[in-house]
């Protein structure tokens, strides 16, 4: 039985993985939005995510809340340290959210164009900034003896985190394209299908470079991963899942392609977690100041109470999330309630 700290490391990881998988396709659809040709096609894209994007963003809000509650020192240090980056992320998420809501409310061309750009720009910027943040967490940031961030904003924009930012955009674009294949029909469906291979290739190229960079320049992750014997199992699963996507798309098994993409993302997040454990925020260059699941955690009592809350709440959340996706299954049909 793992200790409470480890359980909460896994649970926070599950919440952020849920966010990546669910809002990942929303942000990916946003990245692809400007490639749609007509107003109607853009409306189909928006309504493909329309009923669910808001619930998907809640995974981020709850993940952040869980991080605050379970590991307050990490939350405090990371959020104050990444101040400007997170403010930009907030602005990007705000514009993404209101663009979806506002776009359909007026018919003028300039109005719709403006919100198209806000939606696409907000989505790409959000995906990129999330990737950059994860890149910094993996690479390590300068921390001082108090556990406070000792770097600068520009110091966060090193090549390695930027590379993970680009990789994340590519990954979400791939995931979004596969989601759209499920939700579209006719000519648009065929066209969106043809976007899948380029996005997969772009993602794989980015990810290979990123992995090489990790092996070469981030020894603490490599060392941590080598200690975990089942790490190779996860890698094999991730490769199989990604390889299955083009196969499923070719056969027209759109849902299976989407599930494969979800599985691949879960594997990638699991690898990230294995590489980090038991650290939450690496200190670089002084590793002794790193924040871990033990020195940054709330008391055992709080972790226990929260586990009760999570065990009560999560099954209910999963049950109705699944039923809501079930209600809105199938191809997008535009009607007067649509965006």
């Amino acid at each position, binding site marked *: 039985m793992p200790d409470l700290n480890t359980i909460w490391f896994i649970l926070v990881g599950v919440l952020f993985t849920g966010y990546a998988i669910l809002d990942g396709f929303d942000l990916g659809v946003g990245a692809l939005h400007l490639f749609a040709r007509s107003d109607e096609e853009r409306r189909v894209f928006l309504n493909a995510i329309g009923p669910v994007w808001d619930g998907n963003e809640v995974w981020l809000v709850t993940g952040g809340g869980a991080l605050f509650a379970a590991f307050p020192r990490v939350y405090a240090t990371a959020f104050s340290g990444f101040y400007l980056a997170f403010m930009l992320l907030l602005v990007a998420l705000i514009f993404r959210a209101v663009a979806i809501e506002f776009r359909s409310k007026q018919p003028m061309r300039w109005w719709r164009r403006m919100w198209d750009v806000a939606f696409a720009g907000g989505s790409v910027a959000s995906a990129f900034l999330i990737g950059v943040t994860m890149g910094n967490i993996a690479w390590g940031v300068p921390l001082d003896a108090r556990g406070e961030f000792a770097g600068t904003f520009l110091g966060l924009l090193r090549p390695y985190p930027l590379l993970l930012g680009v990789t994340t955009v590519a990954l979400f674009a791939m995931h979004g394209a596969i989601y759209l294949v499920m939700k579209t029909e006719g000519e648009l469906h065929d066209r969106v299908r043809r976007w899948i291979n380029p996005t997969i290739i772009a993602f794989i190229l980015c990810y290979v470079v990123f992995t090489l960079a990790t092996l070469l320049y981030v020894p603490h992750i490599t060392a941590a991963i080598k200690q975990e014997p089942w790490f190779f199992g996860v890698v094999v699963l991730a490769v199989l899942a990604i390889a299955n996507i083009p196969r499923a798309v070719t056969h027209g098994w759109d849902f299976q392609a989407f599930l494969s993409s979800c599985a691949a993302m879960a594997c990638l997040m699991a690898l990230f977690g294995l590489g980090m454990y038991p650290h939450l925020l690496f200190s670089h260059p002084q590793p002794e100041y790193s924040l871990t699941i033990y020195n940054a955690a709330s008391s055992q009592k709080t972790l226990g109470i929260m586990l009760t809350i999570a065990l009560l*709440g999560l099954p209910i959340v999963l049950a109705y999330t699944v039923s809501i996706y079930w209600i809105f299954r199938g191809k997008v049909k535009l009607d007067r309630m649509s965006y």
Partner: protein
Amino acid sequence: MDDVLWLSRLQFAFTIAFHYIYPPLSIGLGVALVILEGLWLKTRNPLYHQLARFWTKVFALTFAMGVATGIVMEFEFGTNWATYSRYVGDVFGSALAAEGIFAFFLESGFLAVLLFGWDRVGPKTHFFATCMVALGAHFSAIWIVVANSWQQTPAGYHIVGEGLHARAEITDFWAMVFNPSSMDRLIHTLGGAWLAGATLVASVGAYYVLRNRHLPFARASVKLGIALGLGVALLQLATGHHSAQIVAQHQPAKLAAFEGLYDTRTHAPLALLGWVDEKNENFRFNVEIPGLLSWLIHGDVAKPVTGLRDFKPADRPPVNFVFQTYHAMIAVGTGLIALLGLGAFYWWRGTLFDRRWYLWLVVLAVLGPQIANQAGWWSAEVGRQPWIVYGLLRTADGLSAVVRAETVLTSLVLFTLVYALLFALFVYLLNDKIHHGPDDADLTPTGKHALPARQP
């Protein structure tokens, strides 16, 4: 460091005040939607279907604004108030985690069915979804008010560590949840939210009556708004009174600031109006009712009420600001009771829709709860100063150690620009929806909501 403190406070105050326009509307409209859709299911009168459909659209707009501006708040605890976050994380965290798990998922999940599910699910399932959205909105108010109340009247914790490493750790979860002020403040906050929703419904209805448009829809909206609003406004008197008693007991400096009371005294008067001269510590242009404050708090005019001079100047909140916002809230609340009470009287007499001047007042009444909610919140939060956690941690000690003034100024300017744009768009779109009005097509419900064909 002072600049960082002021800028961070200003940014938090600005972003939360802006956020706080929308959730009360969502909570209040959520209640209205449950009532309207329940009436539709019960009576099968298509007018209620039309009402529910129209207010759902307005609800969607306020909800989207609430979500977009709400995530900012969660980030700001960490970005601007890192030391505070480390201090309260252990206590505060459980409430926030519960809010995410029980409230946000519930409301945003079922929102999909509420907005887009009219033709996809049966009427009862849709009604269930509407109830869940309203319930989720109320849950989110519960947890955030509990967390905020813990800052006002901490309970169920102990302090571990010293100096920079000190933090509050939970000892009793339920004592934290039911801390002395949480339940009163929760009901009072929810009441403010219901009033915001009720007056919006009444206001738009009154506007249509004045313009002679959508009359059956408009009259039903005015009546719903007045009935719901009057009930809640009276409830606010009771909850507000009880809340003030709790403040007197647990945060005496705040209560003294509410009333501009400097000297501890028996037969303390209740101030109706006035201007507090903080420099000379006196109270000018005051209109007071002798002895009433002592009586309201203790039920006995001979009992003493603590004044501000009992506290070191460093432990006092800004007095005049708290006094004025607190009294603005009470004035607006009293005005709303009078206005809605008058409406109920006219309704009983059957002349509600004959008085144009009255309907114009109802149109303006939508601003009342917004002003009262904001003013009340400001007096509660500024009245807590100089503490961020009352009696335990000072606001100045809760800041992020690594964030500099220029950085906060940058984000403050950014938020000001973005929010100004959002607010303009919100008003524009709300106005547009109101001018467009309810869809007559909604009077003949379709799909699974369709009425059974009449027998010949």
